[in-house]
Each structure stands twice: as C-alpha cells, then as structure tokens.
C-alpha cells in the first residue's frame, strides 16, 4: 500500500509547512498581545508536523522523527514553564517579578517585550504542546496491528 499522498499534495506541503510553522511561532510569541497563545500556537505548529506525516507518509516521518528529542523537548517546555513560575518565589509562586522589577520583558504594554514572564511561558507551553501532539500522532500512526 502506498503510504504517502500524490505529487501535488507533497509539493504544496513543501511550500506550506514553513508557513504554518512561522504562523504558529507568531501566535505563540504574541500570546500576550493578540488572541492565541501557547496552546493554540503549539497546536498550529503540530499541524505542520501532522501535515508532514500525512503528506509524506510514515516512512519518511520515521526517518526524521527522533523520539528522544521530542520527549526531551516536551520535558524542557514543562521545566521552562515551571522555572518562569518560580522566578518570583521570593514573594509568591507565580509572582511576575520580571514585570515588576525584572531586567527584560518589562517594556511598554503592547510591545513584544512586555508582560513579564508571559512570553516565556507561552513559548514553553507552545514547545510542549507541539512536541506532545506530534509525538502522539506519530505513535498513533505507527500503531501496526491493522497492517497484517
């Protein structure tokens, strides 16, 4: 059985996967300014991964997908989120110390580098959601019982 899509789908996927990726990165990194945020952006980027999986087939995906890397990235996302939450532990857990007296991310509200730890947390959640969803989809696609 052929595992991948035809030529047109593949060529279009080649062109659109970077665009989906950068749009997801935009949604994640502007989570404190525009609608969206970590989960939505991460799911968008995971959509690019799933498009790759569907358009190019499982064989191609298996060659580029590294389970340990994605597992580590997911863990890293969670840890960064927790680390950002602990930054202001001197006052309280989740105290936004970057916003009140931090060196970065305390710019004019409405600009990219504002809102304290929120951009960091959005990036962390985006990374975690992306890695988690892609790993889940690859695991489901690699499930082999029906292929006998």
């Amino acid at each position, binding site marked *: 059985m052929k595992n991948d899509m035809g*030529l*047109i789908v593949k*060529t279009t996927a080649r*062109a659109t996967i970077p665009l989906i*990726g*950068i749009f997801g*990165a*935009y949604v994640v990194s502007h989570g404190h300014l525009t609608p969206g945020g970590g989960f939505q952006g991460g799911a968008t980027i995971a959509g690019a991964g799933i498009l*790759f999986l569907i358009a190019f087939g499982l064989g191609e995906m298996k060659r580029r997908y590294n389970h340990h890397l994605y597992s580590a990235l997911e863990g890293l996302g969670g840890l960064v989120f927790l680390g950002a939450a602990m930054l202001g532990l001197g006052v309280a857990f989740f105290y936004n110390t970057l916003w009140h007296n931090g060196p970065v991310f305390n710019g004019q509200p409405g600009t990219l580098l504002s809102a304290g730890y929120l951009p960091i947390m959005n990036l962390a959640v985006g990374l975690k959601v992306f890695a988690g969803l892609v790993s889940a989809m690859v695991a489901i696609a690699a499930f082999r019982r029906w292929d006998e």
Partner: protein
Amino acid sequence: MSFIAVFIWSFVLWLVLTAGSKGLLWSPEELAAGLIFSGVIALTTKDIIGEKAARFLNPAKWVGFVIYAIGPLFWGMVKANLDVAYRVITGRIKPGIVRVPVDLENDAQYTILSNSITLTPGTLTIDACPEEKALYVHWINVTEKEPKSSEVIAGSFEKWARRLGR
C-alpha cells in the same frame, strides 16, 4: 541554499503578520524575534522544502507570478465561473474524466498547472502522473474525449506553469 529559501519565505510571512508594530513599519524587537523564529523554522524545515526551492527567490519569477495571478488566471476564473453558472441554470452538462497529456518537467510545474485547473470551475484535477506525463481531469462538459494537449482545458495555463516553475 534551501536554508536561505525557507528563511526568506518564512521571514516574509513574519513581516506581513507583524507589520504595524511601529507606525506602519516594524519595531526592532519584532524584527529580531522574526529573525530568530525564521532561523529556527529554516533549520528544521530546510530538508523538506526541496533542494531547488531557491530558484523561486528570483525576483523576475515573483513578477511573473503576480502577472499570472491577476492576468490569465483571474480572467480564466471569471470566464469559467460564468460558464459554470450557465451550466447550473440550463443543466447542460456532460461530465467525465479525461486524460490530459502535458509537457512539464518538475513537481512545481505540475502543482501550478493542477492548481490552476482546479481553481477554474468546471475542471478539477484528480491526479497528476509525472511518470506518464499526464493529468487526469474531471471535466463538467467534455467536448473532447482524448485531448492531445491541455489547450482545450486550461488555455494558456500550461505555458505559464512551464515558465513559472522552471
């Protein structure tokens, strides 16, 4: 080279998305973030976009795409929409799937031609077979069962696709 192609491709979309962060232009932090994110995207997807994608960085090609989009493609879509509206009202249809031989070399040309054919109503590309150099097109009003070229279905699209995807 494909790294540069993806980088520019994604950075342009970033610029479009974040335009207006400083007046009508871009603030430096948005530009820096765009460079970083485009770099990451380019690093991760440079093997996907294809080795020869950098040929689309040629500005002459962009002009060609714009001329094609607002010229032949738009005009073809207008004509085909009116034609399909006529067929909806009168019910005079003769649907069928025809094999259209085409003379194209690479994937991009097939994709441009197939998408153009699908975008013009009444014709729908079902499959592109580069190994037999043919497209299979579902046609709402078959006038020629075995066309010798794509002229009857797509007009001048094949010529454009050959030029744009080269």
